[in-house]
């Protein structure tokens, strides 16, 4: 219970809903000096070795870590400023700040699977973020509609984390094999008309398509939500950052998937008139993913104000490639 004592009622609810304590306890078990598990192995980068297979119970602890990082992000967006109950534990039991600062954990979310939200949260808690970022954040949180918008973010996130057909598709996007299928197989099926029917006729691949559909629908909702936050650039940027693993880091993959999908539809239509009917649908999906995957769109103000804290993440996530203006935006002010 110690983590929750100092939170306001709303953030207390968030911490309980996101099961912060149980995820933290699970990750602590791996990091503990008494643990039989080697933390660097459990939380390794699976993509470094093409033959690497992550087995249970490693998967279990990695899921706990992913959900802990998501909880940290949600709390940070909600205004969680600092861990006021540090050092309650003695011995080798670690608190949240120590867990986030642990070198093995930092490698996980800074290098292996770049995720900007916990970086920003950690730096905020250490008061190592630019003052202009903190000031703008505090200004927005005092505005009347801020809590309504924050709760709307929580609605979206609850949907994203619920049991969903999206999860298999997202694993595929993340370069995991799903039921014997890789992202390359999806590309093959969508870019070669003769393979498509067979691919769609298989239960496993159809499930991936349903997951893709669910992800596109979620993306449209997120796009609409973010487009309405003009007076809240920090909140807008925070929420974008929360989902940025899929749209920022994974943005290139998603843009490619949309193009494959649209190409497949064009291949299947009999004439230009029919294709035109669907072009509006394809165009709206393209624009939506385009906006969400552009770090210079929704998160621009956040990246400018918090730039120095997130510059390394932006580089690791590949966001700066081909975007000199982003590099410039995030450069520290002299």
């Amino acid at each position: 219970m110690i983590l929750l004592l100092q939170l306001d009622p709303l953030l207390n609810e968030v911490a309980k809903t996101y099961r912060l304590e149980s995820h933290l306890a699970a990750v602590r078990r791996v990091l503990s000096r008494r643990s039989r598990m080697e933390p660097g192995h459990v939380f390794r980068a699976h993509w470094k070795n093409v033959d690497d297979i992550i087995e249970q119970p490693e998967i279990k602890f990695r899921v706990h870590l992913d959900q802990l990082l998501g909880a940290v992000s949600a709390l940070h967006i909600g205004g969680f400023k600092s861990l006021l109950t540090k050092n309650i534990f003695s011995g080798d039991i670690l608190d949240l700040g120590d867990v986030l600062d642990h070198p093995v954990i930092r490698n996980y979310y800074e290098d292996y699977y770049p995720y900007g939200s916990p970086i920003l949260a950690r730096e905020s808690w250490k008061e190592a973020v630019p003052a202009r970022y903190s000031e703008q954040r505090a200004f927005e949180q005092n505005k009347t509609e801020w809590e309504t918008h924050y709760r709307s973010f929580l609605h979206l996130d609850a949907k994203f984390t619920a049991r969903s057909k999206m999860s298999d598709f997202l694993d595929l996007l993340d370069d995991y094999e799903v039921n014997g299928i890789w992202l390359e197989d999806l590309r093959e099926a969508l870019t070669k008309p003769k393979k498509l029917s067979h691919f769609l006729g298989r239960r496993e691949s159809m499930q991936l398509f349903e997951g893709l559909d669910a992800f596109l629908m979620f993306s449209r909702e997120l796009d609409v939500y973010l487009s309405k936050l003009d007076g809240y650039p920090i909140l807008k940027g925070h929420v974008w950052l929360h989902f940025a693993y899929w749209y920022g880091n994974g943005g290139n993959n998603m843009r490619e998937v949309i193009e494959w999908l649209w190409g497949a539809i064009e291949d299947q239509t009999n004439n230009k008139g029919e294709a035109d009917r669907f072009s509006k649908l394809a165009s709206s999906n393209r624009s939506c993913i385009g906006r969400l995957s552009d770090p210079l769109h929704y998160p621009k103000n956040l990246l400018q104000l918090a730039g120095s804290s997130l510059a390394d993440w932006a580089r690791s996530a590949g966001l700066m490639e081909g975007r000199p203006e982003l590099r410039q935006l995030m450069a520290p002010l002299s």
Partner: protein
Amino acid sequence: MPHSIAQSLEWGFESVGYFAKGGAKRLLVFVHGFGGEALGTWGGMEASLVEHMNAASSDIAFYGYGSMRAQPTASAGLLRKFLSAAAENNTSWRRAVERAVPGSAPRVYDEILIVAHSLGAPVARRATLDALQAGNPWASAVRLVLFAPAHLGSLLHERRAELGVVSGSIVGTLMALVGLRILSIEALKPGSRFLTLLEQDSRDGIANGWVDQVRARQVIFGENEEIVVVERFCEDPPEEIWPGHNHRSVCKCDEAKNAVIGHLT
């Protein structure tokens, strides 16, 4: 705020719940239609409800299911499973309630109000009828409010390729173009076995005294309805027609929010 923050639910797909902090006498369940999603179909209804005092004693669930490929009877079976879990306050539901509102008293719902759109309407009605036939005690508490219900069939079987455009699903478009069977559309062809049985069982249910449960409380269509057949089903009340709305907008507008809130007094 009278409700908890949004909670992911383990039933269906992308289902989200909001639990009343001061206890709940009603379970309010939203069921979407073709290709719709648990929250998106209802255009931000949740934000209106969780702040409204009329909803303060209602637990709210936006239930999601595989509307594109699954047969409606199967979807109804899964919906019934969810309703049973909630209404019977089983272990999983108690756990969900406790996580959202710690220390809360066990839920006993006097009413289960199902608000359904399009395909969701026959799915909800099938689930209700099956629960009544199975003797589930909670079934007597069910009431229905329906937006653009597909009870008498949809026109999509004639316009399969439009499914993607109608539902906003680019994958639905591809499925239709490739010629894949879309079981939910086949089941909603006017005169289908699914719809015929639905009407027959509804009439039987009413004859057996299940009037309040089987007869919808309110039925609403948009003036520009273009996807489902606009006709009176069984002994439902005469439908209301809302000017300026179509199949998708009729359940997203402010009038829809007001209509739902009106049933929560």
